[in-house]
């Protein structure tokens, strides 16, 4: 038996005992009117709250709702001490007599989450506790119980017999409490009206009983001020006691209604998912079944390790406490999707999970469709970037050719023309002009060689990735180890791998302040993995700068993937995985 279970059983026994003691106090009282009725209602209220509270506590130990309900029951029995003929016990009864209302109000305000979630709820709860403790003590100090309406035991805490003072203090408590109870009723009505549909079934019966109780008690509190007839006052008192007793049953009825409704909703969802037309949106079906129009679906793409919406756009799941809740949809132990929903549905996690399970198979196929759409979207975006990158590259080539080799050749043409004109009459000048021409030609050749390597290095075409990467490493301004197989790869893969390493090494030299870099090319499981790592500063961002982005597109065009790991202070690893049968 768990310790919680033992504690709850002990509380149950204590509750039974408290009820018996309270009944004995009422029976033995010299001044209690209608002890039979009082005992019957007292036991009904106390035991109903304690019993229902213990059940709720057992079902949801992390929710304070059950404890508050038990608290209402015990506090209600404590109020029976006010039936005692012993002045000390009687005084304790007076002091604790109203405490059950504070617990009840706290309970209603925090139902069903067990938390006071809004500022208004916290303020109303605070008022209830002040009224039933601080103001209650003030009232007890001026209540002449022996000579008032009650003709009860003498109040040992009485400090003044002044009737005016007593009227002011008692009147203050009555009016402020009545106003607070009416505010509380307004709060409950508003909360019910704005609750999501599935929650309404759960809240309805308990809120109804609670709100009627609040109104009736507000009336009894103002009875002295409004001069009700005794008969009416007794009737209202009795009605309030009945509705008070009804509150825990309202909770049980709500629970039952909500379970039946939710069971029905899940069954209906199963049918509707089966009958769904291809155009029928799973989001709409789930939103309808869970009664949450704000519901969103996010499909998990395991390859990309991201969530996407139905249209394939990437979705970030809300953080805990961000006002939205997330329930994962799992099929065969693997995440298929996530349901992003109103936090009020957290009160019934089994319901959301049941709906998720009912929809899991259909969600799996929608996930595949979403994955396809995300892929199309990504392809469209990368195709656009590739076209733009191609245009940029052509512009750069034109500029490099125009500014470099072409200018050298133009100068050479001028030098040769001048030499040609002077070849007979001025051999020295001709030689000087030819020397000048040779220098221009050498510069032009060097620039053309560099340009050609940038377009596609000859060593890569002729000898493959290993020698081409070694040549790249030799030209790098820092020591670079290269580990690459001699096997040839498809030309497109070799080219993408070469330029990825070239760009990564350029970045290492420019930004990383690394002392050493390493390049490796490894074939495994039909993939080639190309990795460039360094011992530099880290903190590189793959999304910043067009160089890596362009490479990622180029690798994605081969169905590959580029990743960058660059924790601050721990170097950078740029890794490309490219399918290569």
């Amino acid at each position, binding site marked *: 038996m768990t310790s919680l279970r033992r504690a709850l059983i002990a509380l149950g026994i204590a509750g039974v005992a408290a009820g018996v003691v309270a009944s004995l106090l009422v029976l033995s009282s010299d001044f209690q009117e209608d002890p039979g009725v009082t005992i019957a209602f007292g036991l009904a209220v106390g035991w109903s709250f304690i019993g229902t509270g213990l059940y709720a506590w057992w079902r949801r130990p992390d929710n304070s709702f059950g404890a508050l309900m038990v608290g209402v029951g015990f506090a209600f029995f404590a109020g029976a001490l006010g039936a005692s003929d012993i002045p000390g016990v009687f005084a304790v009864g007076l002091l604790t007599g109203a405490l059950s209302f504070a617990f009840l109000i706290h309970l209603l305000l925090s139902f069903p989450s067990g938390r006071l979630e809004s500022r208004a709820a916290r303020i109303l709860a605070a008022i209830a506790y002040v009224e039933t403790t601080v103001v209650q003590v003030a009232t007890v100090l001026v209540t002449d119980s022996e000579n008032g309406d009650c003709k009860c035991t003498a109040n040992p805490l009485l400090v003044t017999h002044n009737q005016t003072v007593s009227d002011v203090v008692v009147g203050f408590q009555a009016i402020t409490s009545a106003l607070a109870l009416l505010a509380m009723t307004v709060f409950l009505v508003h909360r019910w009206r704005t609750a999501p549909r599935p929650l309404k079934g759960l809240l309805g019966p308990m809120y109804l009983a609670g709100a009627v109780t609040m109104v009736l008690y507000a009336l009894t509190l103002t009875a002295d001020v409004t001069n009700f007839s005794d008969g009416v006052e007794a009737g209202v008192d009795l009605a309030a006691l009945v509705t008070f007793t009804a509150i825990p049953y309202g909770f049980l009825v709500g629970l039952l209604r909500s379970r039946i409704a939710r069971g029905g909703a899940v069954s209906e969802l199963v049918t509707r998912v089966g009958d769904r037309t291809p155009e029928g949106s799973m989001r709409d079906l789930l939103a309808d079944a869970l009664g949450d129009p704000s519901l969103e679906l996010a499909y998990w793409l395991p390859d990309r390790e991201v969530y996407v919406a139905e249209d394939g756009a990437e979705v970030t799941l809300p953080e805990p406490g961000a006002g939205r809740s997330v329930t994962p949809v799992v099929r065969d132990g693997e995440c298929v999707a996530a349901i992003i929903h109103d936090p009020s549905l957290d009160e019934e996690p089994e319901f959301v999970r049941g709906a998720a399970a009912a929809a899991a198979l259909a969600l799996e196929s929608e996930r595949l469709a979403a994955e396809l759409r995300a892929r199309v979207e990504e392809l469209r975006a990368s195709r656009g970037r590739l076209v733009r990158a191609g245009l940029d590259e052509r512009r750069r080539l034109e500029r490099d050719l125009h500014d470099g080799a072409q*200018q050298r050749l133009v*100068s050479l043409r001028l030098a040769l023309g001048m030499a040609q004109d002077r070849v007979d009459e001025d051999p020295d000048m001709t030689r000087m002009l030819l020397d000048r021409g040779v220098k221009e030609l050498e510069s032009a050749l060097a620039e053309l060689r560099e340009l050609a390597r940038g377009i596609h290095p000859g060593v890569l075409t002729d000898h493959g990735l290993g020698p081409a990467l070694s040549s790249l490493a030799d030209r790098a301004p820092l020591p670079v180890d290269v580990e690459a197989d001699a096997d040839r790869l498809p030309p497109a893969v070799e080219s993408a791998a070469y330029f990825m390493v070239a760009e990564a090494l350029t970045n290492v030299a420019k930004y990383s302040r690394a002392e050493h870099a390493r390049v490796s090319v490894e074939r495994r499981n039909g993939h080639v993995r190309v990795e460039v790592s360094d011992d530099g500063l880290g903190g590189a961002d793959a999304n910043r700068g067009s160089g890596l982005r362009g490479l990622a597109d180029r690798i994605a065009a081969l169905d590959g993937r580029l990743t960058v790991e660059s924790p601050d202070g721990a170097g950078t690893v740029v890794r490309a995985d490219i399918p290569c049968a």
Partner: protein
Amino acid sequence: MTAVIVDDHASFRDAMRLMLELEGHEVLGEAADGEEGVRTALELRPDVVVSDVQMPHVGGFELAERLAAAGGPAVVLISSHDACDYDKLTAASGALGFIPKDELSVKRLVTLLS
């Protein structure tokens, strides 16, 4: 003949200067872009401004337009691109004419100026 050479490639400016000076002409100044070229030409008032077409900031056509508007010296535009690419633009700019760089010679320049 006096000239100002405007081109963003220093190696070409050197070759051009040498070519003009070997033929007994005087190069009064050089500039690396159109803005500087306009300023230098208006200040030094050569017989001709030999200017490249493609340059950063202010290109050869704008230089020709500005000098024509300011009553500056004659402008001959040069480029490593084909002449036919620039026929209409040259005519509209107010420049005296266009010579492709690979056909450039002092003789061609003098013919154009006369």
